[in-house]
């Protein structure tokens, strides 16, 4: 057993875990965050996507111990505490971007991460940005519409001008600022 500490959706959890425990199992079975689901065993479907320190990862392809000390945001922590939906959640509802809804938690989290990096994606950028998430119901068309609507809503809310946003550059600190000694 290995002692780990995670902040999940704003709450601190200290647990002893078996090292082989996947992050998604830890979230579901120990912490009770069953909103995040498992759809495959090869990291193809993306249904298990969560944010780890703000960036999207597949929680089925990561050990819980690897997440020690980090902050995890799941679909359950996305809406504001008062209940107001995140703009991506709202847009998925408005645009009918889900049918059975099984892929939806991962799809929404992947979209949130995509929009953090690229606040004004084209249709093609949305499609390529979500290539790691499979949906069997919607044919993706309404998902693309929803993500673009959410982008507009988020830019409007931020009061930002519709300027060309740099794509591909994560919101994190530039890697050059890190020390690398090898």
């Amino acid at each position, binding site marked *: 057993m*290995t002692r780990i500490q995670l902040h999940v959706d704003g709450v601190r959890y200290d647990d002893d875990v*078996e*090292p*082989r425990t*996947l992050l998604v*199992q830890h979230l579901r079975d120990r912490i009770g965050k069953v909103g995040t689901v498992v759809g495959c*065993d*090869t*990291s*193809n479907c*993306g249904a298990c*996507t969560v944010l*780890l320190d703000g*960036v*999207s*990862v*597949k929680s*089925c*392809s*990561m*050990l819980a*111990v*690897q997440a*020690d000390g980090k902050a995890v945001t799941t679909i359950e922590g996305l809406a504001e505490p008062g209940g107001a939906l995140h703009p991506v959640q709202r847009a998925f509802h408005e645009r009918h971007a889900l049918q059975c809804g099984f892929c939806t938690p991962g799809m929404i989290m*992947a979209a949130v*991460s*995509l929009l953090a990096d690229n606040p004004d994606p084209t249709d093609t950028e949305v499609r*390529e*940005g979500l*290539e*790691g*998430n499979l949906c069997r119901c919607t044919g993706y068309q309404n998902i693309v519409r929803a993500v673009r609507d959410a982008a507009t809503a988020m830019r409007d809310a931020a009061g930002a001008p519709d300027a060309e946003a740099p794509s*591909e*550059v*994560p919101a*994190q600190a*530039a*890697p*050059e600022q*890190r*020390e*690398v*000694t*090898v």
Partner: protein
Amino acid sequence: MIPVPFDYQRPSTVDEAVRALSEAGEDGKVLAGGQSLIPMLRLRLSTPGALIDLGGITQLRGIRQDGDDLLIGAMTPHADVLASPLVRRYVPLLARATATVADRQVRHLGTIGGSLAHADPAGDLPAVAVALDATMRIVGPEGRRDVPAADFFVDYLTTALGPADVLVGVRFPAHEGWGSHYEKFQRMAQAWALVGVAAAVRRENGTIVEARVALTNMGPVPVRARAVELALTGAPATADAVGSAAGSAGEGTRPTSDLTASAAYRSHLATVLTGRAVSAAAGIG
């Protein structure tokens, strides 16, 4: 599925990692980003007794200039490589190839060192390392050594890394001012490359004066397309010249036939894609 139980260590220095690997022996396995390894653990295709997680060694993550070279820490995630202005400026071929690796989530966790050490013949980065004559920096029980990329990839999923060796970084010679392109052909957006071609060329006026070309998935290890490079060197930067040079892309390759493609089709693709990769790198419309 659930991996079989294993011992887990998260050293904070390279020396500790090497020591842990030495103690684990054949049963030990390095965990980098885990994006290839963890699915294999889940399917129980890999059942190591001990995992040595390099995630705690902070100095292995980052990118810096080192003389004329760019030094990239092995634990640098693909997303960091993509975001790096240094990489874009000095090793744009690496940026182009990295952009095609898997998907965004995988690029957030997966690392350059993990991809190279895994040495999947369908992986995109080994061909880039071979094309650009990158150097692998390895630390093992005997200390530190540098291995040229051409010698690093030994066979299918096999590298020059010994059981207690840790790949700590990759040194890429700067190719500022070179044109470059990675032409990846896959069945689906998510799929591995059926064939990939990494190409970098330096033009002077209308002539290709230097060319570096390597192929992904045309054998158990990346293949440097020397015959193509030779034909390109000194050739005019024209579609005809490139097309003619690309005709020898198959030389020295050993493509396999599998569920995703036959060897004959791979060989055909190698020629077509080499032409496209070099043309794009050389700025030929």
